[in-house]
């Protein structure tokens, strides 16, 4: 493929791709996301390919190894187009029946349909499944329609048209202004307005500027970010290229961990294709704008998500946070002006350019526009990746999208924001997904949601998060390193029945000092899960200490005592 040299040429290429595609042709789309692959999607894909060969259908039927649509709980997932019939938990043994009955016979295989766990109703079409229907899917709705490793699929759904529009008709200032107007805020947690960050960076005098896409994701229970880029890498790259143009950056990096080879492979492949087609490199689409785009593999530590540690790691230094008084937009990567945004922030950019700032800012709440893709796990009926509009309540996410609690047990808490987030009790379930609303109760917009039922011990969960941080902290500063050690010590003795009356005050003191004195955001936020539970679930701690009982029957040293008390 020769490099595309102008927006007009891009449109010709797109028309050519579309002319070779018949929208009424059958296509078997199999989720090839990390989750479904782990559940055996690779074998299912191979089985479909050989079955189609066997039945001599390759001229009439396409197969696609698609991006993850999110219903990971029920994988491997298969959607048959154009009817959009959805099958769940498909195994290679089901393949022959699906091809004969559905693809050829146009009839659904009932036993493979999604059954609503609350109504026992069988649902035929993917768009009717409440899990999908109740989301607001801007970033991930097309995932089953594209093979992440095939740029033609992305072009067929209008990919890179936002880039063409920007390079053809908009000045960098106009792009920045449009992004500011859209209200797009950083999806990493702090929620800084993306367009403003770009403006600051562009305003910094420098011979070179950098753009970084943060794909580093290491929270327990978090897999949404990497799944978004894995499923549709070109969307993120397009956002980065547009951002680089707005900022005046000439080099861009995708910072990603190699714990998820599928994700990394898809990104490499997408960059290779984008270079081949002329969306990165010199004179992009004939505009005179040049950009190189590279992957930077991280060292694998959780703390590398912190911006100063991230950039140190990219420079080949030890990935530890450092105290800085300059903004990255003035002195970031290699001490040059740098914009670091989360991949979900970048992924929203083409959508904003295509639909306009006014359209985008109408989605969500007044102060938080757009959507956020979360990974949701724990004791809900449907776990997976969900995209929710800002302003939706956590109750709607748990019950309307995810179908409520497994076994219809009682909801206990939802953990929002990972190891530096907090636990939300039933009484606050009507909390909206919104930067300000979450901040009011001490929570951040993290990538993961973990739902806990009545059989969970809060003390045990907090211990889990603190132990995670005790390993993942760099250990550089005293309040984080030693604070974590002592908080864990105290929680250990509480869960072993040796808790003391003064322990809760001591925990609060350590947390307070850590919050004020730690070097970086990891240390400052490390006690947040603890503090939120001391506020909302204090009675559980008191039961452990005073009654020597564990209400969730989890802490081994206490469970016997508590079940004895109940008997």
């Amino acid at each position, binding site marked *: 493929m020769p490099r595309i040299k102008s927006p007009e040429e891009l449109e010709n290429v797109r028309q050519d791709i579309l002319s070779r595609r018949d929208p009424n042709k059958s296509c078997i789309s199999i989720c090839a996301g990390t989750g479904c692959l782990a559940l055996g999607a690779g074998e299912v894909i191979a089985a479909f390919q050989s079955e189609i060969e066997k039945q001599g259908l390759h001229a009439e039927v396409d197969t696609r190894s698609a991006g993850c649509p999110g219903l990971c709980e029920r994988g491997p997932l298969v959607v048959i187009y154009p009817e959009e019939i959805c099958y769940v938990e498909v195994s290679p043994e089901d393949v022959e029946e699906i091809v004969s009955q559905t693809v050829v016979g146009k009839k659904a295989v009932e036993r493979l349909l999604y059954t609503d766990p609350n109504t026992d109703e069988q649902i035929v079409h993917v768009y009717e499944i409440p899990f999908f229907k109740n989301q607001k899917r801007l970033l991930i709705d097309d995932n089953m329609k594209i093979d992440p490793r095939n740029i033609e699929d992305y072009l067929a759904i209008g990919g890179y048209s936002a880039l063409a529009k920007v390079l053809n008709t908009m000045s960098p200032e106009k792009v920045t202004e449009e992004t500011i107007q859209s209200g797009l805020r950083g999806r990493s947690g702090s929620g800084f307005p993306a367009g403003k960050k770009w403006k600051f960076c562009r305003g910094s005098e420098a011979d070179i500027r950098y753009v970084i896409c943060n794909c580093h994701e290491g929270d327990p229970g978090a897999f949404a970010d990497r799944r978004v880029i894995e499923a549709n890498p070109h969307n993120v790259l397009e956002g980065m290229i547009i951002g680089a143009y707005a900022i005046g950056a000439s080099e861009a990096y995708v910072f990603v961990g190699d714990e998820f080879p599928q994700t990394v492979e898809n990104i490499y492949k997408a960059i290779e294709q984008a270079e081949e087609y002329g969306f990165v490199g010199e004179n992009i689409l004939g505009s005179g704008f040049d950009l190189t785009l590279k992957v930077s593999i991280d060292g694998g530590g959780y*703390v590398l998500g912190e911006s100063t540690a991230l950039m140190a790691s990219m420079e080949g*230094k030890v990935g530890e946070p450092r105290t800085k008084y300059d903004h990255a937009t003035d002195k970031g990567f290699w001490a040059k002006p740098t914009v670091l945004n989360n991949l979900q922030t970048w992924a929203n950019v083409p959508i904003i350019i295509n639909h306009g700032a006014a359209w985008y800012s109408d989605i969500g709440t007044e102060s938080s526009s757009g959507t956020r893709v979360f990974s949701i796990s724990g004791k809900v009926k449907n776990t997976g990746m969900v995209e929710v509009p800002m302003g939706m309540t956590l109750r709607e996410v748990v019950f309307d999208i995810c179908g409520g609690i497994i076994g219809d047990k009682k909801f206990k808490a939802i953990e929002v924001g990972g190891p530096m987030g907090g636990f939300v009790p039933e009484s606050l379930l009507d909390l909206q997904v919104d930067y300000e609303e979450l901040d009011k109760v001490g929570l951040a917009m993290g990538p993961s949601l973990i739902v806990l039922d009545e059989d969970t011990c809060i003390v045990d969960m907090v211990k889990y998060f603190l132990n995670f941080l005790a390993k993942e902290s*760099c250990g550089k500063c005293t309040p984080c390193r*030693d604070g*974590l050690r002592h908080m864990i010590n105290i929680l250990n003795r509480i869960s072993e029945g040796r808790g003391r009356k003064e322990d809760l005050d001591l925990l609060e003191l350590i947390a307070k*000092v850590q919050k*004020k004195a730690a*070097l970086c955001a990891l240390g400052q936020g490390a006690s947040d899960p603890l503090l939120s539970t001391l506020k909302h679930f204090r009675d559980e701690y008191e039961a452990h200490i005073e009654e020597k009982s564990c209400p969730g029957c989890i802490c081994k040293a206490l469970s016997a005592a508590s079940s004895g008390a109940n008997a």
Partner: protein
Amino acid sequence: MAEVTLTIDNKEIKAEEGMTVIEAARNAGIDIPSFCHHEHLEPYTACRICLVEIEAKGRTDLHTACSYPVAENLVVTTKTDEIIEIRRTLLEMMLSHAPDSRDVRALAEEYGAEKDRFAKESSFCIHCALCVRYCAEVKKKYAVGFVGSGTSREISFNPEIASKECWDCRECFELCPTEALQTAYLFTEALTSSSTPFEFEFKEE
């Protein structure tokens, strides 16, 4: 170098641009305690004992004096109730590692830190990294570094380098506020005779 005027503990002082708050304070005879600050080493901001309150551009926040650059009209307060509580708690954490360190005990007494508030874990090291940074920044030998992360982080000599470089140097020993460094060195000395390979993490700043 341009001169700037700032206020530290209600005292107006002059300092040269490029200095840090801790240097300016010490030049003016105001002591701000710290374990990881050293005049010949880059700021490290890890012990957090030097946290002071700094008012700049209408905002008041806690900052490490060892790294914060002086500027015109800064208002610095080196001791408030909040700072005393932080220092006391951090010292109590340090005492749990190095209960016999003279430097830590002296400061602990000043701040009323209790020796036994936290469970003991006598690793002796308080992770000031003076040895690690001195070896890297001044001697450029990288003979001592950190291994492990989080709560398992500890100093360790690289036996291969240490066996060549440390015998005639050992300049880092007197920098150590506790006994940890000497212990680690003796341990390494013992190791070098067995030539056991083990992982070592270089510290570069």
